[in-house]
Structure formats: C-alpha cells, structure tokens
C-alpha cells in the first residue's frame, strides 16, 4: 500500500501530469455545466428556478462581460452600464452574436452567437434582475402572421426604417463607418427587440410611437419582402441604380462592343 501510494505520488512530477489534470478538470466542469444548463431554463419558471437562473447569469456575466461592462454591470470606460436595459436588449445583443464584441470596431457586427439559448436566457435574467426594463420577446407575442398587415407594415417601414435600412431592408451606410445592417434573415423576435431597445445607432421605437400591432405589421412586411421572389429577374442586390449602372457598363456595353469588334473583323 505504501509502495502503491508512492508510485502514484511519483507521477505527480511527470511532465504530462499538469496537462492531464487540466483536461480532466475541464471535462468534468464542462459536463457538469452542460448537464446543469440542460436541466435549468424553460419558459415557465418560478421563484427558486428564477433565482438559480439569475445566479447562473451572474456567473456568465462575470466571466464573459464584466471586463468591459463592470463587475456589477455598472459600465466602464469602453462600455455602457447595463442596469435597466432589460432582458430584451440582452436577448438581442447576445442572441444575434453582437455581444460579446469580437473587436472594438465602430459597431458590433452580427456573427455566430457565442452563448447558446440557455446561457443567453440566464444572462438576460441576470440583467433584468438589476432594474426593470423591456422584457425579452417570446414566440407567443409574435403573432405577426395572424395579426400583421403587410401593406400597412410597408408604409410604416418606409416612414420609420427605410431611411437607414434601405427601401427593401438591405441595410445602408451611416456616418463614420457605422451602418444599418441588413434585415434579411433576421429572426422576428430580434427585429421586435431591436425596435423596443434601440441597439447601437438605432433609435427606440416605443409602444407609443409604433404600437405593438404596428410592430407586428412591420415584421410581416419585412418577412414578405424577404420571401418575395425577384419578380424582374436577377435582383442586383436591391440597392438601387448603382449596380444597374455597373451592369450596363460591363455586361451590356461589353457584349455590344464585343459584337461590334466581331462584325468589323468579318469584313476583312
């Protein structure tokens, strides 16, 4: 027994001991975490579960967000306070992959989300627990297919959104490298949350400015524009005359000059 113990102890100084231990630790931590996150969550939660979720969100926040937003979400030199932004803002920013930011460029860009749905929900619950704010949008609210009016949504879109996001929701440029992103392929709940939280350069469209029913109409119009086939042939990006001009100088005049050269050659 003494012998056996000594033999094990001698492995402590083996050069692979430390990496092996880290691997074991990471696997066990990851397994515990994934099991825990699979067990928690779900739409209807009561007291204790909610508290666990907030606690979990706080931990994720401390690890992934606090270096910029402060340990208690009080904000810092490079990032705003998140007290009172509400679950909707977190769901939008983290759910579309904008947060955490990949780099400190002009604007957080959409990318593959870093956190999964459960982790995002935990973060949202934590931030919502700091102070009241707009709640995350759930699927039950998004009845745009049933309640929305496409034509009215189009009018609202052109009045409130097209000036930045372009007439067909393709996005557009803002000053100093900022931009309004394309709305094609954006989940309805994220569109809704963007309207109520006003991420980055976007203004907040409160329920008094655009009612919830109107918001659903806007979403319905965007989805209709997204799924609308290109009725006139290749869309050329739906960005207006710039690409049309490019095409006429390259393909249009290109073919015609090519044929003119060919016609003039034949005569020789």
């Amino acid at each position, binding site marked *: 027994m003494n012998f056996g113990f000594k033999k094990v102890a001698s492995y402590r100084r083996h050069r692979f001991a430390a990496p092996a231990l880290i691997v074991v630790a990471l696997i066990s931590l990851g397994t515990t975490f994934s099991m825990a996150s699979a067990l928690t969550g779900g739409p209807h939660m009561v007291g204790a579960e909610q508290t666990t979720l907030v606690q979990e969100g706080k931990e994720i926040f401390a690890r992934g967000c606090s270096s910029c937003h402060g340990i208690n979400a009080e904000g810092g030199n490079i990032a705003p306070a998140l007290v009172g932004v509400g679950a909707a803002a977190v769901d939008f920013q983290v759910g579309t992959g904008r947060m955490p930011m990949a780099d400190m460029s*002009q604007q957080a860009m959409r990318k593959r989300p870093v956190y999964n749905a459960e982790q995002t929900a935990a973060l949202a619950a934590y931030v919502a627990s700091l102070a009241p704010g707009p709640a995350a949008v759930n699927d039950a609210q998004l009845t745009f297919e049933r309640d929305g009016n*496409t*034509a009215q949504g*189009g*009018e609202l879109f*052109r*009045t409130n959104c*097209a*000036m*930045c*996001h*372009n*007439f*067909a929701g*393709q*996005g*557009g*440029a*803002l*000053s*100093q*490298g900022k*931009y*309004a992103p394309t709305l094609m392929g954006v989940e309805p709940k994220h569109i809704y949350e963007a309207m109520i939280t006003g991420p980055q350069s976007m203004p907040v469209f409160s329920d008094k400015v655009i009612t919830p029913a109107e918001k659903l109409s806007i979403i319905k*119009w965007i989805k*209709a*524009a997204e799924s*609308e086939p*290109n*009725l*006139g*042939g*290749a*869309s*050329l990006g*739906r*960005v*207006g*005359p*710039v*690409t*049309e*001009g490019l*095409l*006429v*100088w390259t*393909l*249009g*005049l290109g*073919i*015609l*000059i090519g*044929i*003119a*050269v060919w*016609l*003039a*050659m034949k*005569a020789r």
Partner: protein
Amino acid sequence: MKKSEKIAGSVANYVDERTGAAKWLKKNLTKVFPDHWSFMLGEICLYSFIILLLSGTFLTFWFDPSQREVVYNGSYAPLSNLTMSASYASTLHISFDVRGGLLMRQIHHWAALIFMAGIIAHLLRVFFTGAFRKPREFNWLIGVGLVTLGIVEGFLGYSLPDDLLSGTGIRIAEAILQAIPVVGSYLAFFAFGGAFPGHVFIPRIYTVHVLLLPGIFLALITVHLMLVWYQKHTQYPGPGRTEKNVVGYPLMPVYMAKAGGFFFIVFGVTAFLGAVASINPIWLYGPYTPGQISAGSQPDFYMGWLDGLVRMAPPIETHAFGHTISWNILIPGLIIPGILFTGMALYPFIESWITGDKTEHHLLDRPRNVPNRTALGAMSLAFMLIILINGGNDIIATHFHLTINQIMWFTRIGVIVIPPIVFVITKRLCLSLQRADRELVLHGKETGRLVMLPHGEFVEIHQELTPAQKFILTQHEQPEPLAIPDTDAGGVRNPAGIKGKIRSRMSKANAEQVSAPSETEAKAIDGGHH
C-alpha cells in the same frame, strides 16, 4: 425574265416615275463607309433610341401621368389598399397586370442606360481620335446637345413612375432649382405650380418626356446623321487613305446587312437584359410621400457624377440682405456642370485656336500622336470617375466595409489631386508610345532570334516592318509651336497680351512630340547596321 421579276420591275418603275427615287438611290446606296468597330458605337445609340421609341410607345398605352390620388387594388398584395398617385398605380398595373408589361418597362429602362453609355463611349471615341476637328465642329456641338438632353430625358423618365426613389430625385432637382440666386424660388414655384410636390409636375414632365424631348432628339439625330452623310465618315490612317477619299465598303449591300443585323443584336441584348436582370423595381420602393426616404437613394449612372459632386460639397452658405445663397448646392449642382459642359462644347474651337490649325481633317488621329489632347481626355475621365465614385459612396461603404467619411474625403482631395497626375502620366505614356513607334520604324520588330556572328558577336535579328505598317506609324502631322514672339520689334514684352502668352504656352506644350523618323533617317539606318 421571270414573271416575278417583271412585276417587281413594274412596281419599281411606277414608284420611280412619281418620285424620281432611282437616281438618288443609285448615287447614295453605293456610298462608301470605312469599317472599324469603334464606328459602331454611334449605331448602338441610334438603335437603342429606336428601342426606346418602340418600348416607350407601348408603355404610354397604360401609363396614367397624373398625381390624382387613387387606392391601389391591383395584384401586388404588399401595396394593397394604399393611397398613391395614379401614375404610380398605373406603373404597378403595367408591371403586374399587363401582359409583357414588366418586360417592356425593363427593356425601356435598360435601353435608356445603354443609350447613355453608348453616347459616352461614342463621345470618347470622337474626342480621342480628333474626329471633332474641322469640318465637324457642328456635329460635335449637336453631340454635346444630345448627351445633355439625354441626361435630362433619362432623369424625367426616372421621375415619372412617382415611386419613392423618383420622388427623392425630383426633390433634389427642386433643391438645385431653388439654389439659383434671386429667381430660384420663383422658378421652383413655376415648375411645380406651387409648393413641392404639388399635382402638376408629373403631367408636365410627361409631356416633355414623351413629346418635346423625343422630337428634339429625332431632329438632332437626323441632322447629326445628315452631316455625317454629307461630310463623309472619318477614317483611320492607312495606306491608300487620304484626306480626300474614303476607303471602305458600299452602303448597299455591306452596311445595309451589317447595320440591320446590328440593330437586331442591340435589340436582342437589351431584351436579354430586360428579361434576366431587374431594373428599378418600383413596387419595392413604394409610392412617393415627401415624408419618406430610402437609404442609398441614387440617380441612374449618367447623373451619378452630379450626385457625387453635391455629396462632396462642403456646407457653405451665405446670408445677405435676407437671402440665403446655398453655395453647397449652387457650385456642385449648377456652376461646375455648367463649366464642364461649356468646356466640352467649346473644345474643338479652343484646340484649333491653340494649334492654329484651320485645315480640314478626315483622317483620324492615333491618340498617342496628340499627347496633350489625350492627356486632357484622360484627366477629364479621371475627374468624372472620382465624382461618380462619391455618388455611390454609401453603397461602396457598406459593401467594402469602408466609412462613408473616408470615401468622401478621399474623393474631395482626389478630385483636385488625381486628375493633374493622370494628365502628366498619360502625356508621358503617349510620348513613350511615340518613342516605341519610332524605334519600331527604324529598327523593326524584335524577333527574339539571336545570331552569333563569325567573330563571336551576338546580335538579335530585327524584322523590318512592311511599308504599310511603317506608313501608319509615320503618317501623322508634326505640329510646330505657333510663332508668337515674346517681344516685338520695339522690345515691348508680350505684344499679344496675356491671351497671346497663354496661347504661346499652350501651343508649345501641344507641340511637344517625339519626331517621327524621316525618310533620310530610315535610309541611313538601312545602309548601316543597328
């Protein structure tokens, strides 16, 4: 004689007896035209104009040029029950409820873009080859008129559907109108029959778009072609081609076949574009309301440069005596375009004043042999391209992940700095090409064949050019600077004044040439070795 031939003969005789056409046709059908692909650029414009007339006529059958408010209940559901102008609703009707309507609309718009692109390509060909020189200055002026009216006509067509994009364009046009000092606001009120947008503008521009301007176009194009006919077409230099002849093929049958075929090709390419590529999808833009605007609102390319100028203008305004002068609109929107187009129109006269050349020219220049003109053309092109880039600055910013401010500053500085650099580089390139020509004539083509001579020396065999090739490289005129004395007999400086000084300077710069090898030089080389 076959029966059919007899009938044809008697019909022809019947017509000839009443019109005397046979003599005229006999003379003109055999008229000779020179052959070169670049001479067909003008044809592209002519044919796309015909396509525009045909497709435009089709569109007028259903288009309702009225700003009367209607409620849309056509087949495009996303706009159902919206209030809009009759002009927008009828454009939707053409697009979705008239058989072939959308295709015709797209053909009409693509043809307009090809028309303008063709005009610009044709104009560049005429400029760089010096085809505008005596006796063709009038035709140059008509061409300048056509390109200017083409821009206006295109803009009016873009404005007619009364969708969100066209309304935005009209709004900017109104702003430019208003920027004219003193009379601007009156002019705008006159054009719109009151405050913007009013309800008379669309019907008014419709009349101008389908009646007045096409009529002027037809007249100008007819005169343009008649002058080409009368003055005969220019030709590129070559053996047997002189200032007094035209070497080529007769109109009948060669050019009848070629031109006829090319018309159908242009029509085919336009129809192809109309069928496969969406242009101006007005149903996505929605009806125009002054309270709405879309990101990335752009004019068509032929006005994109103008938009670029307005976009780069610094915000300068003067307030005096209760009036505001918006220099930020006035300078880029009216003054600079005015200078550009006046300069373009006057260029043939300016060039002949500088060179003192009053002779007729029917042989074209190779661009390298006129370095100053070629450099000026390249410089103007660079200027237009830079401001055109700024016209699309927002689209470029989003698609290439740049900032709109960087692009604006790049073009603001670039528009002043880059054109002169392009001038110098182009001029040097032309002179280098002239040097290369001289080298070719004197020493022949490098064949890449190395030969060792008996005493061990290696030489590369040069192949002498054919006489025809030599002729093309040496036939051009060698301009001499004008003899304008710096001082007159009494010792007074600049007797011709500041005008004379400028003319003398420019004439000297213009005469900067690599001299083409003379016959004696060529002979001396032939006798000796390389």
